[in-house]
């Protein structure tokens, strides 16, 4: 009789153990699925937001082109009007190309060597990239305007070359951008400032209302287009 009871208890225990394990596995599996799906939902929401913002931008650009076309259309036959429109467009394109001195609200970042470490090209590239990501509209490094083709490289042990010009520390980066936005981006945990400070480089941030950023050196060495052939639209 006793032996049967023992067998029964063993059976029940084994069953219980299996059930517990099963239960546990199913719960953790559910959690895994749920967290995966939550993440997927978040990603999608994010993507959607980015896409909507992009479309807002495209819509603005399209509206603007339509307005320009209307203006040109209205100016048909009226050369003074056409000249006016062309001039307006030319001025803006020249600003975008960096061919005009500009001013505006922004931030000044000064990075200096210390006794042991010196600023290298990667440090500068990181800061410039972070500024661009924070929607800076004009940037200069020691008064060299940063344009699409501006390179940053080390030359020797202490020089940095930008736009083919050698410069020495301290490096003063000026940017026309929202100062708060830039500061937030730079000061992010694990961000650019943290990296610079890890090398004990001296970094100073200062926002200013009236930053002047010079135009690109206009001797044809910085922006070259001799190898580019414009493709006319179909």
């Amino acid at each position, binding site marked *: 009789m006793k032996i049967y009871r023992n067998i029964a208890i063993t059976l029940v225990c084994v*069953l*219980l153990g299996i*059930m*517990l394990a*099963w239960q546990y596995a*199913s*719960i953790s599996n*559910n959690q895994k*699925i749920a967290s995966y*799906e939550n993440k997927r*939902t978040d*990603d*999608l*929401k994010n993507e*959607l937001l*980015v*896409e909507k*913002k992009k*479309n807002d*931008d*495209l*819509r*603005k*650009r399209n509206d*603007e*082109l339509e307005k320009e*076309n209307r203006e*040109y259309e209205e100016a048909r036959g009226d050369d003074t009007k056409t*000249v006016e429109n*062309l*001039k307006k467009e030319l001025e803006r394109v*020249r600003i975008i*190309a960096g*061919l005009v*001195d*500009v*001013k505006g609200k922004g931030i000044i970042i000064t990075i200096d060597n210390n006794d042991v470490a010196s600023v290298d*090209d*990667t440090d500068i*590239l990181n800061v410039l*990239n*972070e500024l*661009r*990501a924070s*929607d800076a*509209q*004009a*940037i200069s490094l020691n008064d060299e305007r940063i344009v*699409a*083709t*501006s390179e*940053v490289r080390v030359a020797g042990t202490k020089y940095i070359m930008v736009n083919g010009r050698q410069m020495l520390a301290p490096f003063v980066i000026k940017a026309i*951008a929202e100062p708060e936005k830039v500061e937030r981006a730079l000061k992010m945990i694990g961000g650019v400032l943290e990296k610079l400070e890890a090398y004990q480089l001296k970094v100073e941030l200062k926002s200013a209302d009236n930053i*002047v950023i010079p135009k690109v050196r206009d001797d044809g060495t910085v922006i070259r*287009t001799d*190898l*580019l052939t*414009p*493709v006319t*639209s179909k």
Partner: protein
Amino acid sequence: MFLGVLISLQFRTTLSANRQKTYSELNIEKLKAQLSEEINIENSLKKSIDENEAKKEAYLKMNIESKNDEYLKQLKKSLDDAKLKAGLTDVKGSGVVVKLDDAPARTANLDPWDIIIHDIDVVKVLNKLKAAGAQAISINGERIISTSEQICAGPTIRINKNRYAVPYEIKAIGDPNTLYEGISKSEIVAILQEFKIRVEITKSDNIIIPKFKGNLDNLVSALEVEKK
């Protein structure tokens, strides 16, 4: 009795999990549908922008070239030149194409962090190309202009506010030999290859790089012209 309670508990959690699953799946479906709709809108807007630009160009051509007004012609020439410099023109020429892709598989002795491409890698490759005299650059069809960022956004890199995942195809117009030398012998490429990241560099005589396609107001809205 114990068993009974356990079984019913198991049954109930499974049921509720099923219900939850369908709910979030529904949500995902909905979001996907919205996203594809936005992408449709994006494509039609892009098409419209191209058409409007072509219209403007045709209009200017017709109204300026038909006239014998030197000043107008000069103005149009200056505009074309400035657009070329600003990256607002599609261009073609010779140069190199650099393809970057994450390492093909995890390897035991390499840190997963090191075998994927990061924003700073792309920044450095671009910087090398610029130093080697690139006159126009694009990544996955995004024209690089003075304000173009290349910044990590989750598993993607954001360029001109748009996100791109690997592989990255970087095109550069310039002197093909100088560009090839500059990039293939660069420190950054050596480092990437050491971590098994796939780097493929080819010279080409026929590279087409598109113009910048974003909203231009975002590039100048905070800028005031400084008059001396």
